[in-house]
């Protein structure tokens, strides 16, 4: 048996709402196939199965909001026999009980012996109103219960994270989610920033020629070349392609570029372009367009939300020349690109007009330093001078 759990679809996700099941009990699923739609505070995400098998039981009802790690369904793996009628104990296991065994990415301490947080009803209500997460608090009430006073004290010392939890509209909730992630980033990550201006003349020229050979629908955007350049440069400075886990950086095998996409209704998401260093420019372009379309339609997949190993953001469209971004935890670096602009540029002792772009790196000083960061930016620059190799 394999448990299908509410996944973590972003660093600050604590719970998700099941929108609908895409499978019924008894249906076959293959690994990677979407079986549920989950509403996080950012978007509706299709969640994929990690197992191939048959859905034995669906435990969560559409509309239910459950914490991450909650077992939502049980999948009988390929080749395993059907279980006899489940023992009563297992049936009775509440869907809301966090199933910690399957959690590998974050550590959630068990709040109490019974799995239920010891908090008074009034304190729970106030915590929700003030946006205080009581899960890790030490209570001072009877038997260590968290009381109103504990919540008030916590609210007083942490006004920065205060947020009204009951906000009907998604936009406000997304703003809060971003606020929490960014505040955590700036609290925990010692950022350093580097930037360099890159001559884009060769890339622009090459792209123009390349696009002339392509049908309209397959034409490339220069942004895709930037992403590819970043992906390949990461092979040379792999410590930037990592996740910070429990006090140490863990380098990622694949290079999955989180691509910041602003949403029309406000806010942004940064879903992954998987294995960006290994895809052809054409595939990258196709995947990128698909990703933007689905991000805006609110139909991203769970792996796209949870897999990015670094983020690339570009504010060129807004006319911004330089962007120094805030790292999205648990990532350890973020690359920013400004607007492609024509500027006076000295080549061979002559001042000429060249298309240039400002590339920046925000990186975690716990993991890398300016020397390695500089090598990384220089590598991007070098690659963009040889666009045909991308």
């Amino acid at each position, binding site marked *: 048996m394999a448990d299908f759990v509410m996944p973590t679809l972003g660093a600050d996700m604590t719970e998700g709402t099941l929108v609908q099941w895409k499978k019924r009990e008894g249906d076959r699923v293959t690994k990677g196939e979407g079986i549920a739609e989950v509403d996080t505070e950012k978007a509706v995400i299709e969640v994929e199965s990690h197992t191939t098998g048959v859905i034995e039981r669906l435990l969560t009802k559409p509309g239910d909001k459950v914490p991450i790690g909650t077992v939502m369904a049980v999948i009988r793996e390929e080749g395993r026999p059907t279980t006899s009628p489940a023992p009563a104990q297992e049936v009775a296991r509440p869907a809301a009980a966090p199933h910690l065994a399957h959690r590998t990415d974050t550590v959630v301490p068990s709040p109490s012996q019974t799995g239920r947080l010891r908090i008074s*009803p009034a304190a729970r209500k106030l915590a929700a109103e003030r946006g205080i997460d009581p899960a890790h608090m030490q*209570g001072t009430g009877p038997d260590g219960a968290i009381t109103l006073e504990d919540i008030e004290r916590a609210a007083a010392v942490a006004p920065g994270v205060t947020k009204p939890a009951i906000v009907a509209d998604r936009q406000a909730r997304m703003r809060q989610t971003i606020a929490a992630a960014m505040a955590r980033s700036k609290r925990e990550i010692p950022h350093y920033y580097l930037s360099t201006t890159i001559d884009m003349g060769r890339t622009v020229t090459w792209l123009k020629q390349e696009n002339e050979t392509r049908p309209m629908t397959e034409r490339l955007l220069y942004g895709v070349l930037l992403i590819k350049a970043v992906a390949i440069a990461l092979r040379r400075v792999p410590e930037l392609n990592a996740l910070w886990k429990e006090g140490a950086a863990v380098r990622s095998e694949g290079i999955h570029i989180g691509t910041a996409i602003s949403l029309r209704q406000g806010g942004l998401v940064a879903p992954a372009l998987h294995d960006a260093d290994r895809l052809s420019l054409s595939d990258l372009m196709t995947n990128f367009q698909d990703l933007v379309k689905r991000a805006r339609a609110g139909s991203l997949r769970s792996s796209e939300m949870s897999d990015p190993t670094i983020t690339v953001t570009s504010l060129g469209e807004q006319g911004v020349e330089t962007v120094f971004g805030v790292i999205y935890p648990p990532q350890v670096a973020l690359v920013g690109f400004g607007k492609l602009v024509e500027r006076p540029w000295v080549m061979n002792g002559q001042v000429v007009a060249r298309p240039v772009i400002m590339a920046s790196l925000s990186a975690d000083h716990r993991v890398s330093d300016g020397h390695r960061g500089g090598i990384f930016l220089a590598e991007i620059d070098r690659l963009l001078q040889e666009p045909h190799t991308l």
Partner: protein
Amino acid sequence: MAKITYREAVRAGLREALQRDSRVFLMGEDVGKYGGTYACSKGFLDEFGPERIRDTPLSESTFVGAGIGAALGGMRPIVEVMTVNFSLLALDQILNNAATLRHMSGGQFSVPLVVRMATGAGRQVAAQHSHSLEGWYAHIPGIRVLTPATVTDARGMLLTALQEPDPVFIFEHAYLYSMEGELEEGPPAVDISRAAVRRTGKDVSLITFGGSLWKTLAAATSLAQEGIEAEVMDLRVLRPLDINSVLTSVRKTHRAVVIDEAWRTGSFAAEISAQIMEGVFYDLDSPVARVCSEEVPIPYPKHLEDAALPQPDKIVQAVHTLLGR
């Protein structure tokens, strides 16, 4: 303001009732020649005569039943039952007749009967004279249940009760008869539908009634010395219960201790606790606590009797537990 005993207050109320309305008469065991077991009707036989101050045989079922009959016949009887323990003999008359006749006659008959009885422990009269069963009576629809705790209520509740068209049961805590208090100004007849806040506070609501009020006020005074501001609520009326006053208080303090001299299991305190949970669950900052009597027949020896009953230190202890101290 005049200082009088609870006994004098009851007597003053009875006297005024007898003077006001010629339909009012008093009957019960030893109310006449003896002047009442608790001396509440001392001198009444001479003053009002044997027609209106009637000694009865030792048969609660008979004289409570006679009271019901008299009430049906247009009189305004006041029946005194010596203790709540003995009232059980009249429970059939109370539950099957007094409480039901209005309903069973489709509203044609009413039973304007007042029954007074002593309740409670603390006087070393042991297990057949000491129990607190007013919570049982509060279970019965069709009657009103009053628990005067102050001299003002001891005098005034009776007068208002006599205006009621339906049976009213007044539980006088036997330990209070010799207690002195100050009569509040104002007309003697008092409200018999609302609870009263006897002390205001913001940290915890102490909800009680009858004889436990004074122990609770003592506990509140002691708590105040450590900076805990307890609100003391005197329910006054157990049926129909003024739950809104209780909920208002708990909404403010977020904590409640119910003090009830009855046994804990199935006590009126349990009812209060349940209604608090139903009404203001999301305002509670701790579980509702109860201070009740130990689950034993009330003992005779003083140290054991004291140990069996709610006491100020037990109330203080319950509050400390709620506050995590």
